[in-house]
């Protein structure tokens, strides 16, 4: 491959890039004329919400479009070589050797049938850059660089034998196998827990720095990008909003949209009028639960005060969603009891009366699976009204419309829509309306904002807070997101591996001294400060040494 570069020529230069995607026999624009330049050794951050086209641009930098998409114009020049319209063989030849890719889900992106090291050495050997033995030795070296445990041995495992955070680092190592000039990181830490995310972020950053590789870092999380990138570009709906060096962007964003992305983190539920201590609505006492032999909850106890929000925080595997299932009666508790308004609830939902069932309603994480795709909004929201309150005809219609108004959806427009005709945020609102339709006391919100974009998530939180104040609702808010907890919780319960680590009023939990796990959890949340990660890793090194 001839290198035709004047010393400071850009490594990657994208001009007026246009990409279209096929939707129902029509080509719709996904990327609408984006310009982008990456210099050698530079880390370039691409940020935006879902549908912004950031991943599509990341892939386009490799001369790749997914099935159902096509290049509609513009130019992608890598080291002076035009990739759009280039012969397939040329584009393939650049991959691995000079441009490499790190996918969002390493667990799904490693081939389950081969050991990590087999996949690592595939291209260095195929391209005759190294012999198999050299490549394996180099793999171990890279595993060490990425701070993987047992670097000599870990490569000889199959993907399913390695944890998610380690796989993500192994995939970064694999991307570096041929010492490419450019690596595309496509949301590499999005699927990870916050405490794991830190380890992966710092491993990736150190490795990229020490090899001097240029990178494009794609993410929806501004705080994460701030740690990694030298320059940042904000995208929305396939268009560039603004581009600036990271520090400039953080300190003085120019565009309103960029500013609004910051604003989300500052949302706080307005203070309450009545500071009087609330009565207890639900009492959870020494609850144990298990899936078969596998124990998932042990000795869970806490109270839910009426009209308040209790946030249950924990990482994946902490048992927080299982707790919701126990309260709903979907997974009958093995021991302990759940008391609602002074009366013990039967453990299984089948044994509960209609009145008891009505009191506790749930809003689900995935709006897509929470609503029956074959039912219209009218039926989804109307059914609980009819079922619990016995309303029919005009009264039912009026009540349904009222509920839609309450969740800020115009009944005239949305009453007869199918879920597939709603946006993600609108689906989630309908989910809330369905829960409210039962006129419940307690609403369990299971990660209701985690699959939503930040702006939509914020409006969802506002809505929930408003409804709570109007109806004196009690919320049990299950989340992994500390920012959400800060925004709306009254009380906080921190869970880890099926037990409650710490619980109490929000101000107490967030005020030091913390329980060590709470401390770890809080410190792991990325901050909107480019030096946060360096500071944190420096501090951790000090404490461990």
């Amino acid at each position, binding site marked *: 491959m001839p290198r035709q570069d004047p010393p400071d020529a850009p490594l990657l230069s994208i001009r007026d890039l246009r990409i279209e995607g096929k939707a129902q026999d029509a080509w719709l624009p996904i990327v609408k004329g984006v310009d982008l330049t990456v210099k050698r050794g530079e880390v370039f951050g691409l940020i935006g919400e879902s549908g912004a086209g950031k991943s599509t641009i990341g892939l386009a930098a490799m001369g790749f479009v997914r*099935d*159902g998409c096509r290049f509609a114009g513009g130019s992608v020049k890598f080291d002076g070589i035009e990739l759009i319209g280039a012969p397939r063989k040329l584009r393939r030849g650049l991959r691995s050797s000079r441009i490499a890719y790190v996918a969002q889900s390493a667990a799904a992106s490693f081939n389950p049938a081969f050991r990590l090291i087999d996949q690592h050495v595939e291209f260095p050997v195929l391209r005759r850059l190294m012999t198999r033995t050299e490549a394996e030795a180099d793999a171990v070296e890279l595993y060490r660089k990425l701070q993987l445990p047992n670097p000599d041995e870990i490569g000889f495992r199959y993907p399913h034998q390695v944890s998610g955070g380690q796989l993500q680092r192994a995939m970064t190592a694999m991307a570096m196998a041929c010492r490419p000039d450019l690596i595309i990181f496509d949301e590499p830490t999005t699927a990870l827990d916050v405490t794991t995310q830190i380890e992966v972020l710092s491993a990736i950053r150190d490795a990229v720095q020490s090899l001097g590789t240029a990178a494009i870092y794609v993410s929806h999380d501004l705080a994460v990008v701030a740690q990694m990138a030298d320059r940042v570009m904000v995208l929305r709906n396939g268009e560039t909003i603004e581009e600036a060096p990271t520090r400039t962007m953080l300190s003085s964003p120019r565009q309103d949209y960029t500013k609004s992305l910051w604003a989300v983190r500052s949302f706080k539920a307005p203070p309450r009028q009545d500071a009087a201590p609330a009565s207890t609505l639900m009492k959870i006492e020494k609850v144990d639960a298990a899936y078969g032999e596998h124990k998932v909850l042990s000795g869970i106890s806490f109270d839910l005060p009426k009209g308040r929000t209790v946030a249950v925080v924990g990482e994946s595997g902490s048992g927080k969603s299982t707790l919701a299932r126990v309260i*709903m*009666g*979907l997974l009958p508790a093995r021991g302990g009891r759940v008391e609602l308004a002074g009366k013990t609830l039967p453990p299984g*939902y089948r044994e*509960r009366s*209609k009145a008891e*069932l009505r009191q506790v309603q*749930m809003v*689900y994480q*995935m709006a897509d*699976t*929470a*609503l*029956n*795709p*074959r*039912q219209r909004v009218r039926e989804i929201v109307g*059914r*609980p009204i009819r*079922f*619990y309150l016995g309303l029919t005809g005009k009264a039912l219609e009026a009540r349904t419309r009222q509920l839609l108004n309450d969740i800020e959806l115009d009944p005239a427009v949305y009453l007869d829509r199918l879920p597939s005709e709603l946006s993600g945020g609108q689906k989630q609102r309908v989910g809330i309306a*369905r829960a409210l339709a*039962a006129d419940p006391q307690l609403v369990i919100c299971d990660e209701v904002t985690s699959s939503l974009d930040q702006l939509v998530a914020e409006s969802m939180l506002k809505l929930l807070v408003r409804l709570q104040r109007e109806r004196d609702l009690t919320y049990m808010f299950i989340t992994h997101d500390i920012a959400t907890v800060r925004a709306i919780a009254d009380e906080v319960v921190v869970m880890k591996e099926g037990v409650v680590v710490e619980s109490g009023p929000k101000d107490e939990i967030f005020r030091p001294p913390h329980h060590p796990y709470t401390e770890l959890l809080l410190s792991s949340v990325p901050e909107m400060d480019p030096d946060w990660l360096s500071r944190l890793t420096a501090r951790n090194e000090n404490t461990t040494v």
Partner: protein
Amino acid sequence: MASLIRTVKGMPPTALFGAAVIAIYVLVAVFAPLLAPYSEREVVGDQYLQWSAQHWLGTDNLGRDMLTRLIFGARNTLAIAFFATALAFVIGTVTGLLAATLGGVVDQVLSRVVDIIMAVPGLIFILLLLTIFGTGIVTLIAVIAVLDSTRVFRLARAVAFGIVAMDYVEAARVRGEGLLWIMRREILPNAAAPLVAEFGMRFCFVFLTIAALSFLGLGIQPPLADWGSMVRENATLITFGDITPLLPAAAIALLTVAVNFVVDWILHKVSGMKD
């Protein structure tokens, strides 16, 4: 009506062809007595007459009009295959949905029974049961329906399992909805598309099985006209280079191809796949 036209317009040529063929077959089957020049069992001339103006397709091994037999064959063969498939579907869908919704012991028992039945090739089971009960249309339909319902059961169960895992079904459960309501309102509407496609495929399978049995002389019995038996009864003609006995076989093949084309199209529409 407008939506029907839109659907037809959106069909690829193969599916359009398939739908047209199916429509023609159904018409022929329904109006057989009006369309056929003679009656089903009437001996109209000598054996094995050549094609002529009186007998467009000649006569068969007993001197009956071939065209007439072919037309009535559509009626008998289609009706029996359709009833057997429909019966298999009712049995399979109901048990499959029950297994998925109730889970536990019901699912275990039903699934193990189906496993056992499916551990033996279908045709073998059919032949064994026909040996014992003797051949006859009712036996035929019942035996095929029961055996074939196992496949419908597997599909209905698998599809319903996917749906049962959805949060909206969970929501209906903890709302306190009854089993029937959940099956009818939450599960069935979402399982309909794959089940319709499966109906087409099962129909083809049943249709071919019955044709094969009749060809072996173990299915639909004379003097009823039926395509499989017509091939067997007149097969000797083929060794003289006469293609007439192949016409009923071709009629079978054409219908199965047609149904498969339509099923393929439905499946692609359901899965949203482009290829």
